[in-house]
Structures are given as C-alpha cells and as structure tokens.
C-alpha cells in the first residue's frame, strides 16, 4: 500500500500505530504508582477479546465497554478497524514490498479463517479462553515484549557497558543522553523470556506471509478480522459499484484484500479507500445503499459449525490436563481462582512487560497446555514488589484485579516453604536469614529463633533458625529471590488452593494474635 499518498485512512493508521508504540513504552514503571495510559487500551477496544470474554466468563465487564462500541461501529460502518486502526495491519502495510505480487495463497483461502475463529469461540464457551493466542494485537505485543524490546534494551545496555570498559569514568560525560533514553524509551531492566523465539517467529511468519500476498494474514487467518468482517456485512454502507467495471478493472490492482476474484467480498473489504483514491474515473463511493453486495452465507456451513464446536471441545477438554505440581501455579497478586483467571486472561503479556521486578513470565508448559502464555510468578527470577500494583492496572480484562495497594499487599500468591536440605542454618548449621531480612510483611512472615545445634564439626553451636508464619505470608517470593544458596533456593514459594487474602495487618491486632501463635 502506498504511504506516499497521505489519505485520511493512512494518516489514521500511522497515528494509531504511533499511539500503540507510545502506550507500549508507557506500560512500564516510570516513577509513578499509577499508570494512567497503557497499551491495554487496544485490548479493551478489541471485539475478539470481548466476545471470547463474554463466552468464557459469562459475565459483563465495564472494562470492555470500548470493545462493545467498536462492535457497534463495525455494524454501522463495516470492517474499518483493519484498514484504519489495527497496528499489526499497519505494520504489514509498511513492510509490504513495493513490487508486491498479489497472487492469492490458495491453500489459505476459503474456510480456513473460520476453522481458526470458531474453535476459539467454542473453546471459550467451554471455559477455555484461547482467543488471545491468535489475536493480532496480542501477537504483535508479545513479539515486541518478549523479543524486540529486550533485544533493543540489551543492545543499548551492552553498548553502554562496553563503553565503560573502554573509557571508564569518562563515560559520565555522555551519561545524561543515555539516561534520557533510559528514562523515556528503553526498558529499565532487560529481561529474557521463555517463548521469546516462538513469539518472534509467529510475528515474523505473519510478516513473511505478506511477501506472498498482501494482507494474507488479515484475509485468511486473523480471527479478529474474521469476526469484524462478519459483523461488517450488516453495515448499510456499501462500496459502489459493487464489482469491477467492465471498462477498467483498476480496482483489482489497487485493492489490498479482495478483488482477486473479480468481485468485492464485503467481509474482506477493510475500507482502506485505496480504490476510491486511485480510481481514474472517480466512480467509486462508499455510502448507504440497498444494493446487494456479494458475501458468503450469513452463517458458515453446518459442517463448519459442528467442526468448530468439535475443535473447541478438543481444545478445551484435553488441554485441561495438568501435572499435580501445575494445578496451583503462582499467579499475579489478586488472582484467587485459577479457572476464573483462565477465562479472562488475554495472554497479551502486558503484566509481564510492566512487572517492576520481572517476577512474571509467560507459561510454556508449567500450567498445562491451556495455560500457554499466561503469566506465572517465578520468584527465583524476580519477586512481587510489596508496594506495587501495576499488573492489575494494565490487565485489560481484570483477570488480574486492579487493587488498592493496601489490599494488594494482603493478596496471596503462594506460601513460602523451607527446603531444609538447602537452607544453610538447617543444612550446614550456619547463620544466614537473608530471607527474614527481606520479608516485607511489617510483622515478618519469616522469623528466626536461636537454637543450640550440633555443628557439622561436632561442636555444639548457636544458630538462628528461620521459620515461617504461614498466616501472614503472601508469597511475594522475595525470600526465594534473595536466598544466597546457589541455583535452587533454600526457601521456595509453593502454590496454594486457598488464596484468600491474609488478615488485615495494619491494626496491630494481627501482630498480637501472631505473637500468641504456638511457634
């Protein structure tokens, strides 16, 4: 698509892509406890997110009101989202080679898009919301979060570090410039993520498809585009004339999506207005009309519906299997019910992007197949910062609830347990209690007591032995994170079924109760 002509639609595309990237960068702690604008705005306006949420969670969420408005706008105007807003679509347009070949990819055309959309929606209905896996904005965001952004940060950081080894303290002369970049553009901490290769490959694969056919992903695969296309067919606005003119046929070359068959398929028209702009005869208009415009059947064939349902069941049921240690994974703070969480999580990766101490990582297999890309706390790599509430703030669907800080501090992620074969005071009879030092609970969920033990040298010695006050442990994981034992920590956070918040800790009343506990 030619970006030299600055038509309204192209400007809109560029603005939304810029907005997307800006919000992406803003989805990070930059000195404020509250993030007012985050990239979740795009997901909250995403009809696929809304529909799968409604099917799976079977409740309404006001967070997703913008997506409802988007559905209404699509019903009125058609599939304009793809040609005016979608950042992935814009990216594809920007990366399309000038000498594009528009030969349609035959093996992708036809019902393939329904074979993707319908099983996703049926799986949602059967309580497994996988829509985020193929949502175009989620694919883009994950590619950025898990691959490109860390790559960018690492490149900058390593250059900066290299500079120090070259010129030492003199580097300070240009530090203000680097700090400016650091403050406004680069990630604070470069994190390596699991699934980063897979995330990048999916995004790059979609971009490479573009080499074979323009907007191939959008036409043949994208479940959001398919849904919008289906909704758009109810729009009273039509492109006139509805087909190619006998004397011209320029549209075939101008249209990025649908004219390769000689007729305009409404479901695939993304209202990019390229045909109108490029028409040598100024014949083309988009306006309300009662003229029939060719489109596929209103409902896909019964075979497809049944197949989609079967596919949904096939996804939803066997994917449920989990190993025993996967049943209660460590979820972000405030997630109390694993099943409710899976119904709402978009797997967009925002919580992992924003996580202050990089405690959150996408699950590959750790919570079963159904949990692919959902956020997991891995305390040995990063802990949940006591006073931070960012993940709940950026979650587009409220799968991670947005909690006030006092509430969040009491939310239980898991419970810490000592591994006496690793923990130094037990295993090697020496002092340590780094875990107690770092425990952020004001009353200390990890404490220690002096005990007389037989040292490894056979001499009686006094050691501070730590213990856990389970009633007030919120499983933040800082103990596991800082444990100075190498590789496998001497204390670990385990998932628990009962994630009810710990009792109010501010009154001092709890302290009183805890002191009386028989430890």
């Amino acid at each position, binding site marked *: 698509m030619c970006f030299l002509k600055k038509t309204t639609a192209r400007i809109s595309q560029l603005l939304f892509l810029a907005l997307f990237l800006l919000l992406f960068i803003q989805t990070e702690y930059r*000195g404020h406890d509250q993030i007012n604008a985050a990239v979740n705005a795009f997901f909250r306006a995403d009809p696929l997110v809304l529909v799968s949420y409604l099917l799976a969670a079977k409740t309404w969420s006001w967070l997703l009101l913008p997506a409802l408005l988007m559905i209404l706008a699509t019903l009125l105007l058609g599939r304009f989202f793809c040609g005016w807003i979608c950042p992935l679509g814009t990216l594809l347009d920007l990366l399309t080679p000038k000498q594009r070949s528009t030969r349609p990819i035959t093996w992708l055309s036809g019902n393939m898009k329904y074979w993707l959309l319908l099983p996703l929606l049926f799986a949602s209905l059967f309580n497994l919301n996988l829509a985020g896996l193929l949502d175009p904005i989620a694919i883009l965001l994950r590619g950025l979060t898990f691959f490109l952004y860390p790559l960018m940060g690492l490149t900058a950081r390593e250059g900066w570090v290299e500079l120090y*080894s070259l010129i030492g303290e003199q580097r300070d002369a240009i530090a203000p410039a680097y700090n400016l970049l650091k403050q406004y553009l680069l990630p604070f901490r470069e994190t390596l993520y699991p699934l980063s290769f897979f995330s990048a490959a999916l995004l790059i694969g979609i971009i490479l498809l573009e080499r074979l056919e323009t907007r191939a992903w959008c036409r043949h695969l994208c479940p959001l585009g398919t849904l919008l296309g289906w909704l758009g067919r109810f729009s009273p606005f039509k492109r006139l004339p509805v087909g190619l003119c006998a004397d011209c046929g320029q549209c075939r070359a101008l249209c990025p999506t649908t004219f390769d068959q000689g007729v305009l398929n409404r479901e695939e028209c993304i209202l990019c207005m390229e045909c109108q702009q490029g028409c040598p005869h100024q014949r083309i208009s988009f306006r309300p009309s009662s003229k029939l415009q060719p489109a596929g059947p209103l409902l896909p064939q019964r075979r497809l519906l049944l197949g989609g349902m079967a596919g949904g069941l096939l996804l939803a049921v066997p994917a449920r299997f989990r190993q025993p240690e996967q049943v209660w994974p460590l979820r972000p703070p405030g997630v109390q019910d694993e099943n409710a969480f899976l119904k709402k999580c978009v797997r967009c990766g925002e919580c992992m992007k924003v996580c202050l101490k990089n405690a959150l990582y996408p699950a590959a297999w750790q919570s079963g197949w159904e949990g692919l890309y959902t956020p997991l706390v891995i305390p040995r790599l990063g802990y949940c910062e006591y006073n931070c509430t960012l993940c709940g703030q950026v979650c587009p669907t409220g799968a991670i609830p947005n909690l006030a800080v006092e509430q969040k501090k009491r939310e239980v992620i898991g419970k810490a347990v000592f591994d006496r074969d690793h923990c130094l005071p037990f295993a090697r009879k020496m002092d340590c209690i*780094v875990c*107690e*030092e770092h425990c952020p609970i*004001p009353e200390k969920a990890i404490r*220690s007591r002096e005990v007389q033990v037989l040292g490894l040298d056979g001499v009686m010695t006094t050691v501070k032995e730590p213990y856990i006050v389970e009633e007030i442990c919120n499983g933040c994981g800082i103990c596991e994170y800082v444990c100075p034992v*190498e590789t496998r920590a001497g204390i670990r956070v385990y998932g628990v079924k009962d994630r009810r918040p710990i009792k109010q800790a501010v009154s001092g009343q709890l*302290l009183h109760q805890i002191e009386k506990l028989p430890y």
Partner: protein
Amino acid sequence: MDRRTFLKSTGAAALLAPVLVQELLAAPAGPVVAVAEGRDYPAITRRVITAVGGMGRYVKPGDTVVVKPNIGWDRSPEQAANTHPAVVRAVVEECLAAGAKRVKVFDYTCNDPRRCYLNSGIEQALKGLKKVECKQIEMERFKMIALNGQFLKEWELYDEALAADVFINLPIAKHHGLSRLTLGLKNIMGVMGGNRGFTHRNLATALADVNSRLKSHLTIIDATRILTAHGPQGGNLADVKVLNTVIASADIVAADAYATTLFGLKPADIAVTVAAHKRGLGEMDLKRIRVVRV
C-alpha cells in the same frame, strides 16, 4: 623563627582556637562522638558536623565525595528504614560548602532502586543541587577487590566508592534480624556487589574485612527516628521510635558503639562492632569515647 616568636604564635593560636586545644587534650582519651538532639534535622546534622571539626576537616576543596546513606528499601521516611532525606541533604550541603568538586550519593538497594530512591525521599531532597548526583547503581562498576580478610579474600566493591577522595558513611540506626542492629559498619554493604547474602554466614568478620579496605572518613548516624523491631525493613509505625538525634564521629566503631546505647544495648552485644574493634578499626569502649553533646 626564634624560640620566643614560636612560643608567642603557639600561645596565640591556642587562645584563638580553643577547640584545637580541646582536641589535643582529648586525643589520648579516645575518639570524639558528637551527639545532637532537636526537631530541626538539618540544624542538628550541622551541629554534629561542626562538633567533630567541621566538614572542612574531612573534605578539601576539589575533592570528590561519596555520601552513602541507606536507601535500601521501598519505604517512606517515617517508616525508618532509610536515612532521613533532610539529614542526607544537610550532609551533602556541608560537603559542597567545604568545596567538594562533586558529591555522589548512592546505595545498592534491596528493593527496586527506582522505588527506593523515590520513596525514601532522598532523590527528591537532592534535586536541583549543583555538583551533586544521586544515581542508581550500575552493575558494571563493581570491581573485584582483593581484601585478604579473615573471611572474605576478595569481593566486588563499587568503583565510585573506591575512587572517592572522601567517603562519608550515613546510615540510619535500626534493628536487624541477624546482626541485631545495623549502623555504620553494616551500612558498608551498600557498596558491595555480588551475592551479598553470602556474607551473612559470617557477617561480623565479613564486615570487618570490607571496612578495613574501604574506610569511612566520617560516620554520621541518623537516629532522628529508629526502628526498634522487625528491621531492617520495618513497615509498622509501632516499631518506630522518634529520637530526633544525629550522631557523628570520625571513628566508625565509636559512632556505632554510642548508637547501640539508644536501643538499650551495650556495644559488646553487637558482634559486628566487636569484630571491627578487635580488627583495630576503632574504639568501642564507651568509657574511652568522649561524647560531646551539642
């Protein structure tokens, strides 16, 4: 110069600078620990600095000074986990007044550095001061240093702390689960890199090892409010005691020893203090320390 003029000028100097004489007389009696109490934290900070000879005694014009407060935790000033920002600022201003070329303020934090620098109030308190930088730690600046200590043979220390002309140790006095109290000697951990938790297995010796290598020219202990339990992080205001006190000494062990008494403990109760004293890093005998209340 003949003997007569020499005597005259010495006498005049003695008359003009009684403080000097005082110090000369006091010298055999052990180190001076200055203690000031008051609600005006910058003022009491300045008073103790004056009482230990004034900042000019430690900082010469053109010096690069490192001021090392405790910024370890994502806690607010009233929670008494970090050095009070008003005290930090007063110390930094004194360094500037003494002619420091550059004053660097930093700590290797335990919680997220952004949150610690912000919520401790220290970053904000130093904002706008010229020749002052309040930077977060950069990992590449840690250098492996041979300590040849009794426990630590070598350890990573922060290059800016090593390169500074003057190192001012500015801890807050608070409870600590392992060492009972954390004061000046323990505050040195903030310039240590690597797996710091490792040192806990022999903390007192490890801290004596590091303090032998990286000497604090001046130790100023913030006891404006102290954390009496559940340290070093605290979080419960019930554990905070407001003392409105600042302590200063050129002798880090003496400063720590005196601060110990604020908690109702004896210097000998704190293994870190004892180990440092045995290592010859300073005086812990309260009878040999001259406490100057100003």
